[in-house]
């Protein structure tokens, strides 16, 4: 069954650490528990989104810079 990584906070989701940097993770990449897969910007402060368990990223469910709600699934893991 697919596992999901959900947003811990409401805000704007970023897949990159900075606009000129490569994304933290691409689809198909493996992740370890606790590894950073993106950032959430909430009220001008940035917070890391970490994988809660290990897996392989099947797909991202939101685009870079999308507005997201707390608890919204961001990525699916296999």
């Amino acid at each position, binding site marked *: 069954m697919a596992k999901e990584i959900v947003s811990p*906070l*409401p*805000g*704007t989701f970023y897949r990159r650490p*900075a606009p*000129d940097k490569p994304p933290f993770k691409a689809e198909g990449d493996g992740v370890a528990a606790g590894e950073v897969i993106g950032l959430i910007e*909430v*009220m*001008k*402060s940035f917070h890391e989104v970490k994988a809660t368990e290990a897996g392989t990223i099947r797909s991202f469910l939101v685009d870079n*810079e999308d*507005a997201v709600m707390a608890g919204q699934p961001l990525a699916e893991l296999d």
Partner: protein
Amino acid sequence: MSGSGGKLLVANRGEIAVRVIRAARELGLKTVQVYSKADAESLAVQLADEAVEIGPPQASKSYLKVDAILEAARATGATAVHPGYGFLAENAGFADAVEAAGMAWIGPSGQAIRLMGDKVAARSAAHAVHVPTVPGSDGHVATLEEARPVIRRTGFPVMIKAAAGGGGRGIRIARDEAQFEKLLPTASAEALAAFGDGGLYLEKLIERSRHVEVQVLGDGQHVVHLFERECSLQRRRQKVWEEAPSPALPEEVREKLCASAVALAAAVNYRGAGTLEYLYDDTTGEFYFIEMNTRIQVEHPVTEMITGVDLVREQIRVCLGERLRMRQEDIRRTGHAIEVRINAEDPARDFLPHPGTIETLTVPGGPGVRFDTMIYPGYTVPPFYDSLLGKLIVWDEDRGQALARLDRALGELRIEGIPTTRDLHRALARQADVREGRFHTTWLEHWLESEGQELGREVAD
């Protein structure tokens, strides 16, 4: 009145948009509020005569979209644009575009914004009228060879600052020569990556300095000052508490400080409301110009409270082409005012921002109390913008009495549904150093490190 019959577009959001709409209405201007999808329910949208949606929630796709805002202005027949603070307020290209489209820009010329926005050019302008600046390089520094004679003059610690930085961003501190030689080469690359401009300059770091700033108003020909504000209580270089007058300035320093601000603003033919920021060393009585903010500031109400001048209304008047209605000798100050920023942040969790729905709201009242806000019961604070919910401002006859009134008003303020910084201010209003005016720009962070863990607990009424 020059305002009558015009239509002002508000290119901002939150409490400042509400503040601008109120001033415009009192001048007989119609208002147009632009808004993002996340702000459809905002108080500013409800108050304005017309409202135009300009894009999705993210500021980069709405409040920073010059084309979308200009299109809204054209479509509604706006005759003027007020940028508020933040977003496009100090964007010279936007100022030029508004004027090129035949509308009045409620701010200084694009040229003045460019000059004061370039820290090196602003320092040169200050030197030309003998306004003291922090010892440092009088221009960009590119190499160690160029930097050596400068650091011999400034000593350590010294700051390496990005010319295009600001708001505390793009600053590296070197405490000795070895550290300096390591930091300088990387600082340029970092500035280029962060701001698109690798230009650097050097400035002596004055530790334990106070932040004082002078409010000016100009009509392009004449400039007056409205005295100073002190904003030394800061967290992560963000002001949290501002007051006027400064509790630290002797009268003769105040006169020299305010005169220097007028000289510098007059030198650039300043139009509109502006603020010249200074560091003040209360051990030596020396002040140093650091930068000019070419817009209305968050903390403008404390100046309004001690002078009785409506700064936003006067700013709009002069930018619509009226002459200044006051001479310097007409501007007097009375009493003491304090503003505290009520933010949607949790003091018990290291000030983690906390958007959400305002369930109940009780606004303090009584004499000398003002609450500038955009929240109302049932309003949902969106996560996409800054955490400022409102500004509680009190005025009283002197500082001691103003502190008592602040404590009283904070006790009346009730915001339920999300955590706020109310209790931080309650604790500060009762703190001995704050009551004595004994603080500097890093005082609050040190105090939070030692006392901050108490902030989550209930403060006794």
